[in-house]
């Protein structure tokens, strides 16, 4: 009980401290004559946000780029571009980049296509909102939780002499009479390189709901008269979908692709919770964490973070450009 009380005291103190500071500063502006007062007030309003962003994000980001040229446990020894060179030459580091590429292509394409398909099939269906809510639910829980849920699906208890507790292995055995060959229980998360794809499936499970919700809203916004006109002209439902609906929701497709790509680039929790990056499932963000905070090589970690940042830029650039194009067309 005391724990909870002290917990909430900390919370109240944190929030109280912030309001006290802002209140005091705002009070101080009231002492100023009206002209400077308004200017001072606008800095009180915008100042905390700007200060936090400069101290906590802008300067650290620049410093990370700087640190990426250093090595050693405190990143104090200058090494030039060695960190980057090691990243693209050593084979275990190359696996990291390869895995991120698999993640990027796998999750982005499959969850977008699935989301689009589900949004189309459920549109106007009875029980639409229930179906969508259940598909969307994984989005609300933590990726660590999602990782545990799926680790349990992939669980392996031993060969056929014992009962399986993992759903996938049980289904694999049930399929034995149907499929050619012999289906023995597998340690799914240990089979390289397929284990990466079993992790990717988890992220698809999470991201599909997101794509579905966005596409569903976009599809409902498509102009009805366009749909009717196409149907009167004798277009099949397939033609209506690919000829009318897809072009009208293009901006949403770009948004889903961008958001998913950026989320997947930074994937961390799933790998951390399920394999810890072992058995050749390592990805950039998890490697960055281990190198920086566990293995005492923050310089290399900083280089990995910088690569993440550089990878985001072209995606954002494409996104901004496509929006400018769609705005000009509108």
């Amino acid at each position, binding site marked *: 009980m005391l724990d909870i009380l002290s917990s909430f005291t900390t919370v109240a103190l944190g929030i109280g401290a912030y309001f006290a500071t802002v209140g005091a500063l705002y009070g101080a502006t009231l002492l100023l004559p009206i002209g400077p007062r308004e200017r001072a007030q606008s800095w009180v309003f915008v100042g905390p946000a700007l200060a936090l962003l400069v*101290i906590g994000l802008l300067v650290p980001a620049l410093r990370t780029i700087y640190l990426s040229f250093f090595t050693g446990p405190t990143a104090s020894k200058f090494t030039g571009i060695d960190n980057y060179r090691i990243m693209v030459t050593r084979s275990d580091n190359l696996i990291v980049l390869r895995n991120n590429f698999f993640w990027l292509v796998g999750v982005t394409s499959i969850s977008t296509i699935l989301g689009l398909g589900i949004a189309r099939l459920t549109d106007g269906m009875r029980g639409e909102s229930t179906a969508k809510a259940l*598909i969307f639910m994984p989005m609300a*829980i933590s990726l660590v939780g999602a990782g545990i849920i799926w680790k349990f699906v992939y669980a392996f208890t031993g060969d056929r002499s014992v009962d399986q507790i*993992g759903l996938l292995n049980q289904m694999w055995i049930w399929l034995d009479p149907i499929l050619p060959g012999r289906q023995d229980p597998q340690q799914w998360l240990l089979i390289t390189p397929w284990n990466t794809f079993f992790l990717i499936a988890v992220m698809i499970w999470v991201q599909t709901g997101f794509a579905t919700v966005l596409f569903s809203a976009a599809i*409902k916004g498509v102009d009805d008269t366009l749909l009717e006109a196409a149907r009167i002209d004798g277009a099949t439902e397939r033609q209506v979908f690919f000829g009318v609906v897809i072009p009208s929701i293009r901006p949403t497709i770009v948004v889903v692709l961008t958001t998913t790509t950026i989320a997947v680039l930074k994937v961390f929790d799933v790998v951390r919770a399920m394999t810890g990056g072992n058995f050749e499932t390592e990805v950039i963000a998890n490697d960055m964490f281990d190198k920086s905070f566990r293995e005492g090589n923050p310089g290399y970690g900083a280089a990995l973070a910088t690569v993440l940042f550089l990878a985001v830029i072209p995606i954002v650039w494409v996104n901004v450009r496509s929006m400018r194009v769609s705005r000009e067309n509108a």
Partner: protein
Amino acid sequence: MTATVTPSENPLAEVLTEEPRRPSRIGVGAHLHKTLTTKFVVWTIVALWSIPTVGLLVSSIRPERKVKTTGWWTFFVDHQTTLQNYRDVLADRASGGQMGAYFLNSIEITIPGTVVPVVIAAFAAYAFSWMTFKGRDWLFVAVVALMVVPLQMALIPLLQLFTGGAHIFSITIIPDLGLSNSVATIWIAHTIFALPLAVFLLRNFIGSLPRELMEAARVDGASHLVTFVRVVLPLAIPAIASLVIFQFLWVWNDLLVGLVFGSGKATAPMTVRLAELSGDRGQDWQRLTSGAFVTMIVPLIVFFSLQRYFVRGLLSGSVKS
């Protein structure tokens, strides 16, 4: 104040609250949903999407021996239940899961980690929309541009800052604030990382409120603070609610920030403990399943009770203008 405006008079609020509706006869899927095949496909996908979670929930209430030796689906013919797994995973003793203590940490982190960035961002959004100061426009662009910086870019220097302060040529710019063993480091980090998107979303909303409203308030002699608190905030409730839910779930579910800035049972959030259990006691399925459900319960309640706001926040958050 003479200008009192209800949220429904704000056209943007209307658009945001009302999802587009129309008769299902003419919708995109109109000609599909009649067939049984469509229904079959949809509900198969729904089942596929739900079954893993059901398996987790069922396992979390089965006795340890059963969880470890038989599939959870056998529960439907052999339904023994127990709450022992939850007692074990929440228990504070060394052999327990200690999730209770971590649960409190999560609350201590998530509440300020949600309230503080939203408040700071709301002030900034108001200033960017309705106050005039030097460099306003390019400062706003700079804030928005920071959205593209992955938080990984800030972790190493921020940790150094929290543990040792900031120094340039041995001159101390920011002293060691002695925060390194406090939950404050975690929610401060969350606050910083949330600001670019929060400022962007709230400025879009607050900036689209009618100009006459602000002018009326000024004519009535209301100061900026009064205008902000009494006029703008009530109107911005829908946008703020979506942002709060979104940020709450983000902080609650986060692992990375908690791992970097948290330190064990004293400050780390639940997700950190769950990942630890998954690594150290990977075969203790009775604990992993119940532990995972303990972390999921709050987001699931938020999700199912406030789904509308959540979806709306997602739509406005990702459809950047």
